[in-house]
């Protein structure tokens, strides 16, 4: 049986975390299931949702900062959230899950299928951790592999800072068994600028097809400055297939994931029919 503590400030929370077999709980949408199954048996559960400084959204001209314990519903309700992140979050779980689940939880879980991660990688978000010292780390360096981050014992994730990129359109595609409550089999996010039929800039990331969310720079270099044409996309498709390293699991086989991920890039063709807005 675990003891639960609900500290009111970060200092007390990190102190408990560094001295005991403790686990942070925010929304609990993932943790509660693992605790119930007996996979996780912490002596102490530290509920961080009452720490005011971990909650809320602050925005400036060039960036937006989200407290780690801010719920996904609260984020969806904020008018300044970048469109691709909003799109990805509205695909997570169900309204009930989004009322509980937090952005920090989604990041710290470090699941290759974490739906907030694809947009965070594309926007070039940084996260701030706190413990003995405060560290600001780019998201792609924070996450090391499935379930693994650079967080040390006694440290918690404090906030996420997202640069607001101007003039980008986006595409977000999530392939799963149904639209609600499903864990991605493959997901793809794209940020792009299109002018006179030419891709001025493009950033592409995939989820669920690699140990971490993956941005494929080689693909971006290929597409940048190009018209969107099927020959180019066929080449792009090959790069994706050769770069990603998916696994076979209960949701899909590695072969299926490779096929779907490499074909998803053809979604770019749709924007040429829509005057640049996907």
């Amino acid at each position: 049986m675990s003891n639960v503590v609900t500290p009111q400030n970060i200092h007390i929370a990190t102190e408990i975390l560094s001295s005991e077999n403790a686990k942070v709980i925010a929304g609990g949408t993932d943790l509660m299931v693992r605790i119930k199954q007996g996979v996780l048996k912490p002596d102490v559960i530290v509920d961080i949702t009452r720490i005011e400084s971990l909650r809320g959204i602050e925005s400036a001209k060039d960036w937006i900062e989200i407290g780690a314990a801010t719920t996904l519903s609260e984020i969806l309700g904020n008018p300044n959230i970048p469109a691709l992140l909003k799109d990805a979050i509205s695909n997570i779980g169900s309204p009930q899950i989004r009322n509980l689940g937090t952005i920090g939880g989604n990041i710290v879980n470090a699941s290759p299928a974490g739906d907030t991660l694809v947009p965070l990688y594309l926007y070039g978000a940084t996260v701030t951790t706190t413990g003995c010292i405060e560290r600001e780390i780019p998201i792609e360096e924070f996450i090391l592999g499935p379930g693994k981050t650079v967080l040390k014992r006694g440290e918690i994730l404090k906030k996420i800072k997202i640069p607001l990129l101007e003039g980008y359109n986006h595409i977000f595609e999530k392939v799963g068994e149904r639209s609600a409550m499903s864990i991605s089999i493959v997901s793809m996010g794209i940020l792009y600028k299109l002018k006179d039929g030419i891709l001025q800039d493009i950033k592409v990331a995939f989820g669920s097809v690699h140990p971490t969310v993956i941005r494929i720079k080689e693909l971006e270099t290929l597409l940048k400055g190009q018209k969107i044409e099927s020959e180019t996309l066929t080449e792009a498709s090959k790069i994706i297939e050769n770069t990603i390293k998916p696994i076979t699991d209960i949701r899909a086989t590695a072969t299926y994931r490779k096929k779907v991920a490499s074909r998803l890039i053809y979604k770019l063709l749709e924007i040429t029919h829509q005057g640049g807005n996907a």
Partner: protein
Amino acid sequence: MKVISFTINGEKRQVIIRGDERLIDLIRDELKLTGTKEGCGQGECGACTVLVNGKAVPSCLTLAVKVDGKEITTIEGLEKNGILHPLQRAFIEAGAVQCGFCTPGMIMSLMELLSNQEEVTPEMVRRHLSGNICRCTGYAKIVDAAMLAHRMLKEMKSHV
């Protein structure tokens, strides 16, 4: 063990709970409010949905300590002085109940939607119920019931 206090269906309560107790166990086993159902126990089916400070949450994924100082509404809290809430009446009138196991969760999810939106469309209802699973009805009558309740609530508002 921990002492927490909260309001449930308008009534103030103070209870002693186990630290890792789930909200659904507090509601069903301690408070004997068995209208709230447990389906999957993993937040997938929505049967255990209750309102905490007006937000619909799966009570199977919520730690009981998290409701300390908060306000909970369960299906039992909707009826006032023997009169059913419009949503409950609409479910009966539209024939939206078959086995009934998902009904309390459906209604509590819809409570959140109907209390926060001036205008509601069938599409919004379907989206808002995406976390509630029903094995019997095929959902059509549930959506009908939600729209009927929406009309009833609007009418009541216009009479005030």
